[in-house]
């Protein structure tokens, strides 16, 4: 595997997880600081399925996705009925919980990590997965479920008046995001062949939030472009040595000042076809209005 392939694999994985964050934060208006931890759940489940139970690549990935899905119900069921901030708090609790369990458990290798997962992931695996994910998320956005998400984001009470089950809608978005994080995590496990708890934490989750904002909260294209662009940027700045993180932050900040709704705002790439007439009114202005200040 070449250096470029490695970078492309990591970029693809980041893009898959960021699509989940787009569904959760961009469409539904929920802030999760636990996405990296769902990735950890997916990665470790897939890794353990492979290492301890001898499952193959695809079955292990499925185990990872299912584990992340289950976790999303455990976190979502109590917290999504409450205020959106409490949901965020629950995702943080989940983040700490996953990190602690991984550090303490000898089964997962503790802080030394899970050694010896197979190196399987290749760039075409990630490309196929990413293509599928982009297609699923696009259709989700345009479906009635996607519109329900937007209505819940814009005004939850009004949405419920019109017959949208707000709780079920939020849980659906959250589970989709968790499943995508789980898929990304599984691919990550089979790319690195080694997992340790310090790879996934709340700071990593917040990087995903930054990406989705940077691309434009209302835009799926933006979430994809930002994940590719920012991963590439971080990689290119490698030669900047100790200036690396400083330059990275400056570039993000300056871009935001010139494009206050992120790179793409709510614009979508539409491959020459007319945009779906029933697409939700997706201006980030409506999102800010959600806070009704």
């Amino acid at each position, binding site marked *: *595997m*070449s*250096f*470029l392939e*490695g*970078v492309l694999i*990591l970029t693809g994985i980041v893009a898959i997880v960021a699509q989940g964050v787009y569904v959760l934060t961009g469409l539904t208006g929920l802030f999760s600081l636990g996405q990296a931890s769902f990735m950890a759940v997916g990665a470790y489940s897939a890794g353990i399925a492979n290492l301890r139970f001898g499952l193959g690549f695809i079955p292990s990935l499925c185990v990872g996705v299912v584990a992340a899905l289950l976790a999303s119900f455990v976190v979502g069921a109590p917290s999504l009925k409450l205020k959106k901030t409490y949901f965020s708090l629950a995702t943080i609790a989940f983040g*700490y919980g996953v*990190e*602690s369990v991984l*550090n*303490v458990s000898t089964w997962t290798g*503790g*802080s*030394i*990590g899970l*050694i*010896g997962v197979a*190196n399987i992931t290749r760039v075409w695996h990630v490309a196929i997965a990413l293509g599928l994910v982009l297609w699923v998320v696009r259709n989700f956005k345009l479906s009635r479920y996607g519109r329900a998400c937007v209505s819940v984001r814009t005004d939850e009470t009004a949405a419920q008046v019109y017959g949208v089950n707000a709780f079920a809608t939020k849980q659906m978005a959250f589970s989709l995001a968790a499943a995508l994080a789980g898929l990304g995590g599984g691919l*990550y496990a089979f790319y*690195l*062949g*080694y997992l*340790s*708890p*310090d*790879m996934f934490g709340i700071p990593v989750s917040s990087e995903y939030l930054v990406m989705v904002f940077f691309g434009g909260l209302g835009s799926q294209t933006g979430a994809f*472009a930002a994940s*590719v*662009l920012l991963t*590439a*940027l971080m*990689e*290119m700045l*490698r*030669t900047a*040595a*100790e200036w*690396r*993180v400083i330059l990275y932050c400056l570039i993000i900040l300056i871009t935001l000042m010139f494009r206050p709704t992120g*790179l*793409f705002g709510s*614009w979508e*790439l539409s491959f020459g076809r007319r945009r779906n007439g029933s697409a939700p009114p997706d201006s980030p202005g409506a999102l800010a209005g959600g806070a009704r200040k």
Partner: protein
Amino acid sequence: MLRRAASILAISALVLLVAGMGISAQADVIVIGEIAALTGPTAQQGLQERNGAVLAVEEINAAGGVLGKQIKLITYDFKGQPAEGVSVYRKLVQQDKAVVIVGTNFSNVNLAMAPVAEQLKVPVLSNAMEPAVTTPEPGKVNKYHFLAQPSSIEQGAIVARYALDELKFKTAACLVNKGNSFATSQAEAFRDYFNANGGKVLDYIEVPAGAVDFKAQLTKIKASNPDCIYIPQYAQEAGLQVKQARELGITAVVLGANTLGVPPFVEAAGSNAIVAGTYFINNVHFGDPRLADFMARYEKRYGEPVITTNVFFGYDNVYIIKAAIEKAGVAEPEAIRTALENTKDVKILQGAGTITLDPNTHRPVDMPAWIFKWEADGTTVPMTLMYP
């Protein structure tokens, strides 16, 4: 619309730039790659390590290089993150055509790099203390990974042996950062040795990663009143633990890892008076007359004294590699690997002055380390040189 198109164009251009950048290989120089955390929470360690390595390369080049060629050191940042470490390894090997890699001193990063190094077959000389880095399972050795300091198991056991045999302690408590493999692997070795040789570890308390307030845990330790407390954490955490222990009126002697021998430890603890009486292990003796010349050169080059032990890791690793390249007679990864495996009595600054690597474990053979004691005047006194 045009602006959107321009953005998309810009993205594609950037991606292409990533693809095409950094392809450079010169025949007249030997490229050594260094993986160091230059940013992030552990930046100090990486920056110090780079200082050491750069100084060594400058000295070697000024003296005519190796095999008549100049050495080119390329250092990339990995923010302390394992996945980035793997990317950097690939970049150094495949794009910069490095023939050998130096770094890191973070076990989790080297554990992630190990399978890739076995594929790409370019050797790594590291200071990652966890034995699984070089021997993933008993009897199996990672062909392309080497360790240039005593392993965590040796270091933890040496401290336990000193506490039992020299300080005559009967009981101990361990306070361990559960999120740091550096701390856990040493603490487990300490506990096992201490319990197996007539002592008793009363408390083995694990603290979560990122904690800075340890009074809850220390209050528990105070209640069980051990003779000594072992805290193999990084400098800042260890300093805070000593400070908070004294604030709670705990008088037990504190023992620690090589991170306790550096100024940041004293800074975190607050004063020389607080750290006085603390013991720690280190395979470098900063005040050794043998190092005086190096210390002066370092200070002249960087305008500040050596801060952490990582300087010696960087410096010594470059010299170990130089010896290996000279022994191999050719700057090719496979030849260097074989030569590294047979490293014997190479002169370095750490330990007793030489290093020999065991071909079966890729770790040093009988590399000694000092036990030091902090005095109230802010100096460290070497008590004894201990062999594993």
